[in-house]
């Protein structure tokens, strides 16, 4: 092993530690008793007690908020994919005037902060009667996720060889039949990854959700509003609940995140 490789591995381990050690701290905090959490100095190893976690999930409002979060996230994932899949397919398969303008518009939505969007939407939603509902939040989250998911999906479809589709047509499929039988099965994992991205964005989003809800907050909003009075065990267990989906979902979609039109944005 050359000196350069040793340096490379050393750097990699240091950087990984910078990410992983803080996560370990939260795991320890979430799986420790209240006594251990308040007992300074802290132990580097948890006592694997479920006391804090149980305290968190049985706190008034938490189960409802968690359920809201999950419903909103699933709605966002489905809605985003339904809107993005046709658009992504069009971008990947057709050459047409306006394609670049569309791409550019989609990319430029990034410059518009969620703060500007969510407040007028709250006013609209009050008029439409969907303020403080899972639908309102899901509609907002879909607007946030849509631009990036369109680009992700277009990359997915571009990765399915057009020859497959043409072969299916040669063998007698209609255009839609070819799409269903040749494209969908090959694109499915990529489409699932794109939807996962939308789900994760929604589960994590807190600013818009806090503007758009009142009595029915999502989990991050519930934790945020209670933060000033929350005891430490509640905070640490809550943090683990907020972090947990990332461990699985990033593992599933990590390779697809690379190279999506200037990088996708999770909030």
């Amino acid at each position, binding site marked *: 092993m050359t000196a350069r490789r040793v340096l490379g591995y050393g750097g990699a381990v240091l950087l990984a530690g910078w990410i992983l050690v803080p996560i370990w701290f939260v795991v320890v905090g979430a799986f420790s008793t209240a006594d251990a959490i308040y007992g300074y100095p*802290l132990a580097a190893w948890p006592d694997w007690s479920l006391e804090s976690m149980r305290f968190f999930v049985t706190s008034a409002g938490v189960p409802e908020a968690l359920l809201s979060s999950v419903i909103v996230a699933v709605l966002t994932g489905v809605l985003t994919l339904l809107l993005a899949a046709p658009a992504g397919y069009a971008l990947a398969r057709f050459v047409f005037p306006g394609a670049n303008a569309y791409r550019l518009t989609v990319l430029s939505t990034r410059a518009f902060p969620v703060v*500007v969007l969510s407040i*007028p939407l709250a006013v609209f939603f009050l008029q439409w009667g969907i303020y403080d509902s899972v639908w309102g939040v899901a509609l907002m989250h879909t607007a946030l996720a*849509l631009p990036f998911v369109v680009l992700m999906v277009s990359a997915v479809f571009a990765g399915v060889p057009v020859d497959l589709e043409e072969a299916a047509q040669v063998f007698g499929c209609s255009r839609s039949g070819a799409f269903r039988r040749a494209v969908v099965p090959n694109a499915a994992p990529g489409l699932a990854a794109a939807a996962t991205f939308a789900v994760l964005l929604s589960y994590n989003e807190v600013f818009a959700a806090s503007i758009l809800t009142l009595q029915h907050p999502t989990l991050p909003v519930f934790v*945020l509003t209670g933060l000033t009075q929350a005891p430490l065990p509640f905070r640490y267990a809550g943090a683990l609940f907020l972090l947990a989906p*990332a461990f699985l979902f*990033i593992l599933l979609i990590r390779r697809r995140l*690379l190279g999506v039109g200037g990088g996708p944005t999770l909030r």
Partner: protein
Amino acid sequence: MAEVTEAVRAARTATGERRGGPQRWLPYLLLAPSVAYLLIFFASPMIQAFGLAFTSTTGGWGLESVRAMFGDDRFWPAVWTTLILLVVLLPLQFALALAMSMVITSRLRASGFWLYVFLLPLGVSELGAGILWYSIFVEQGWLNTVLQSLGLIDRPVIWLDYREPWRVIGTIVVAEAWRSTSLIVIILVGGLRAIPRDYLEAADVFHAGPWQRMRHVVLPMMRPTIRTALIVRTVLAFEVFATVVALGGTATDVLATQANRAYTEYQDAHLASAYGLVILLVSLVAVGIILVALPTRKERGQ
């Protein structure tokens, strides 16, 4: 290949598709739902935001809400804190992200593992990251535990001391550097992978050291990528919110926390929209500055 294309054309004709027929409209039809959605849920609230900011709770057009915003004691501190966070974070994050991207693109073993770990914070919410770092910086937290066990301090330090704004801002910088560097990593990895191997080999032929290679080959080739990453990161930095609340409580203000407070506490959508427009304005100005300061070759006319 020509026969296949012919056969496809024949098949399409047989199924009723013709050049210039429905085929021509199909892409627009496919884009329509997403365009309609973005018009309703993106463009229209954006326009409405101006309407809200330039009216007030008493009704009628005017600068009342904007004046109320400028008159707020917390307005300028919030602006400065937002800008300071950006200026301190950008170089720190780019250095970190560049190192991480080098690890991912170098041919070290377990590349999938490094990629996973470096991208993990991308899936972590602002609030989750904020509480995570709170558990480290709180008085009976991890940082004090570690420092004291190393004998560097005698008793716990109050890192989140609200009478010491700089200290609190420092903790927010650390938390944000941890959380949002992944996004830059994703963008930079794309750019690094696009550098042709020949260029790097040429640098080796001329005995360029690692520093020279970075300075004269890698960074110039990465220019457009770095520009994209800068824009994305800058725009998002103006929206920093939950990390600040988790670490700074109600004592530290940034523009987004002010906007949120205007709506959730004062129930004033007009004032909140005025804050939103300030964020939009500084974002657009920052993007403009970056575009002018880092022109691509094409724009420089080379």
